[in-house]
């Protein structure tokens, strides 16, 4: 079985006890047919982990980060007979969001290549943002900027593991590590 790991995968060890844990299983077809569900789950996860009712900074940021990740999973997953598994765990001030899904070779390789570019030491993310926006304005670039935006502007680390299952099917495990903002 061919596996690839890119970025800070398993930044928090799997056997490390978490202070909070939430698991959700959803079907990609349910998300793409009723897009509002992406937002609904993002807002639910964010509210679940917002422990300070007077400070909504983390809630807004967690929802924003989570929404981008779940939108990507919904868009690029195989749509039939598949599921997206979401595991969210809190380790002190680090929130780990793990999303597992299956996709085809094209989408898997596109994600791998995107991650390599975004995480390369040679990449200036601010320059890349300007460059890609100008390309989009000229109609010469089609891919999204969600991951670039998260990595550039939010305090996150990203990790990716892909597993070739054969028959043009890939298991994708995407991890986001979000550093919770200090409460005021």
């Amino acid at each position: 079985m061919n596996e690839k790991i890119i970025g800070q995968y398993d930044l928090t060890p799997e056997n490390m006890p978490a202070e909070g844990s939430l698991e959700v299983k959803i079907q990609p077809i349910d998300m793409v047919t009723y897009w509002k569900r992406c937002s609904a789950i993002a807002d639910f996860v964010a509210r679940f982990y917002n422990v300070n009712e007077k400070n909504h900074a983390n809630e807004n940021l967690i929802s924003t980060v989570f929404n981008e990740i779940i939108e990507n999973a919904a868009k690029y997953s195989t749509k039939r007979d598949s599921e997206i598994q979401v595991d969210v765990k809190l380790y002190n001030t680090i929130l780990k969001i793990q999303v597992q899904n299956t996709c085809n070779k094209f989408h898997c390789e596109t994600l791998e290549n995107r991650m390599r570019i975004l995480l390369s030491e040679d990449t200036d993310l601010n320059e890349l943002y300007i460059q890609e926006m100008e390309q989009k304005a000229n109609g010469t670039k089609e891919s999204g900027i969600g991951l670039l935006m998260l990595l550039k502007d939010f305090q996150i680390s990203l990790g990716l593991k892909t597993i070739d299952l054969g028959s043009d099917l890939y298991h994708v495990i995407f991890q986001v590590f979000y550093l919770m903002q200090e409460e005021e």
Partner: protein
Amino acid sequence: MVLIAGESQLTFNNFTSTVVFEGSMRLANLTEYEKVSEFLKDSAKSVEKNLILDLSRLNFLNSSGITTLSMFIIGLKKLQVTKLKVIGSHSISWQEKSLPNFNKLWHEVEIAFE
């Protein structure tokens, strides 16, 4: 002039030359954002010189929405006719992270936080 886009509403006030965004704007892709893009272009055509985008009541905007606003700003930059001010809110965290990017696309965009 009012546009409903998903769970958000855009209102253009001709007297104040302001487009007010309210709610949560998380449409699925750039095709769905085309109506927002057209609304912004029409608003820009309606003002003499200055346009204000008031985002201070917009709780969420996804990356496709950020892309739509970014492309609108690049379009204004090319035309060099309309000056743009973007108003955000310190109490909505994503705005503090993302709105300063607009100024990187065009240095003449004024970003103000309430």
